[in-house]
């Protein structure tokens, strides 16, 4: 139906999240029909991204520089490091504009099912950062799942093993009722966690 170049474009687009074969076909057609406005700029942007984007050697974030723009920003507070599973989580926290410290991407969670062990995660880098005198607090912002919290406890154990004079304060995100959440519609687990983490008013 179409030339091999178009078929290859469709096949690659179909592998993107949110796209299937039919929507990839529509997207490909949309790009090709708007060659100057869409296809050429997108191709240039992708080539540039592929050439320049790298993993920050300090925190594991994705950026065109290493250290990344967050690690290199002098306005950020280096005394607080927020530990996240992946770059998507880092972006989610950045969207809130409520955290002014630095990040550390550990690259996943311990998983018995997927065979992910501590050596597969960037925990050694975190321990090295924790030992630096400027690090005063580490926030564990890992998922409220069995794997996420198993990883959080493991990381906490590793940091607890540091000598007392260099050990930073450890904290984790609260678990509980989301903004806009009606109690009647919350699952038992969230309600249990919210009750356990209740605060005086």
């Amino acid at each position, binding site marked *: 139906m179409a030339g091999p170049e178009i078929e290859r474009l469709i096949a690659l687009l179909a592998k993107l*999240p*949110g796209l299937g074969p039919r929507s990839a076909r529509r997207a490909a057609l949309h790009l090709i029909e708007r060659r100057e406005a869409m296809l050429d700029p997108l191709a240039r942007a992708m080539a540039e991204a592929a050439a320049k984007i790298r993993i920050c050697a300090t925190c594991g974030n994705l950026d065109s520089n290493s250290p990344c723009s967050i690690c290199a920003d002098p306005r950020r507070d280096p005394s607080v490091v927020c530990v996240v599973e992946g770059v998507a989580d880092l972006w989610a926290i950045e969207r809130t504009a409520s955290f002014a410290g630095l990040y550390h991407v550990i690259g996943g969670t*311990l998983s*018995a*099912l*997927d*065979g992910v*062990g501590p050596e597969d995660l960037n925990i050694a880098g975190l321990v090295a950062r924790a030992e630096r005198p400027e690090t005063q607090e580490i926030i564990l912002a890992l998922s*409220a*799942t*069995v*794997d996420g*919290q*198993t990883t959080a*406890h*493991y990381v*906490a*154990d590793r940091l607890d093993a540091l000598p007392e004079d260099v050990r930073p304060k450890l904290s984790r995100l609260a*678990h509980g009722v989301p903004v806009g959440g009606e109690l009647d519609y919350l*699952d*038992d*687990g*969230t309600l*249990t*966690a919210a009750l*356990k983490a209740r605060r005086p008013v």
Partner: protein
Amino acid sequence: MHWSEDGIVLSARKHGESAAIIQLLTRMHGRHAGLVRGGAGRRARGIYQPGNRVTATWRARLEDHLGSYTCELLSSPAAALLDDPARLAGLAAACAMAAAALPERAPHPEVYDTFSALLERLAGDGTVIDWAEAYVRWELSLLAELGYGLDLSACAATGRNDGLAWVSPRSGRAVSLSAGEPYRDKLLPLPAFLLNGAASETPDRAEVIQGLTLTGHFLARHVFAANEQRIPAARQRLAARLGDAPAG
């Protein structure tokens, strides 16, 4: 083909964009996998945490198909354990062991019952020793159901049922203190709470760790090494954590 039964979530693996392949432990259908449409989505993800209890309906056109599940959450013990490192390690280890060791679609009611008992202990107010003892008993039932049950009823050498203190690492049979003395370096200690008729005895921490070493040895040897696998890392982390956990 379809059936409905209560089950315990052992694992959930994302499949495609929003579906998940989950493994349940059920009483009558054993470890059974199925596809949950939307199971990896934002709303449903919390239901399929390891250890959660669900009422599941499995449907497939043919019996040997993967089939699909529709599930309703019954209770979520996992959520109550997230803050407790040792209990969470116990839950993760039990789920990982069941997922790795049990054959698919073979009913093992005894394993299901002891797993349920373990979940209740994990969610209860008891001490570390309390649920860790239930964990050891669960692994003993796992060994027995898989055909590698330990014979702790009498001494393999003398046939007597008193003074049992060791277990042979090869045969899995108990050995009395006197008969095992010359070989004590090669034998595994038998904690008293695992002896027949000692169900009411409360073990101490050292005995629970001995129990874990005992079951871990035979599971590694018979179940995992035989299939060229290693014992799941979650189980190793549990053993390491119980060595350090506070007694409360």
